[in-house]
């Protein structure tokens, strides 16, 4: 069975990120192995714990959390991109706990582990 890796570059307040989530969820539910999701560029804003999307709008992060827990899906956060956008893994740490703080070396790993990489 082929393995997938996904890169997310769009922010949580864009519907483009809903599409990325939809793709990942559909892949997982149909039994495809996902070696990991790498959050880069504005995608890193997903990991900011203080992001407050109006309660009647789509809550991206809750859906990522459910996927992470149900499927043990690794969610990698590029820390360099994150720091530029106000996220920090030092005190006060504001990175959501479902994310693994990573560097671009992790993207090399994902590319090597996966048969296909899809960028969103």
């Amino acid at each position, binding site marked *: 069975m082929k393995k*997938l890796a996904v890169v997310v570059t769009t922010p949580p307040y864009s519907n*483009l990120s809903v599409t990325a989530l939809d793709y990942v969820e*559909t892949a997982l539910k*149909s039994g*495809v192995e996902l070696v990991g999701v790498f959050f880069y560029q504005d995608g890193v804003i997903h990991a900011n714990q203080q992001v407050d999307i109006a309660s009647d709008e789509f809550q991206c992060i809750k859906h990522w959390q459910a996927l992470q827990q149900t499927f043990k899906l690794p969610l990698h956060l590029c820390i360099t991109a994150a720091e530029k956008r106000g996220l920090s893994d030092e005190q006060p740490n504001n990175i959501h706990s479902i994310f693994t703080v990573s560097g671009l070396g992790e993207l090399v790993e994902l590319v090597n582990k996966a048969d*296909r990489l*899809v960028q969103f």
Partner: protein
Amino acid sequence: MTTLHIVRQSAFTSDDFAQCLQVLRNNDVIVFIDDGCYNLHHSLINTIDSAAEIQLKVIEKHAKARAVTIDETQYSVINMSNLVELTLTTNRVITWQ
């Protein structure tokens, strides 16, 4: 050896789709998703060489949400599961966004 091209932006706003067409090869697959659905009626579509046997597909709900009509003689209508399958059955993916 085919490439899956995922087109996410309107060609009326940006030149991403035009760039996609520059690297298109015989038997490649184009899937229009998100704002890429606005390209279904763009004139650039007509520049695709019919001899190249390019497959043109669109995610139905993305077009429907935007009230973009789909000519099913020209485009095949797919869902997200089909896109996942296409990712695995083609040889590489390029996202134009």
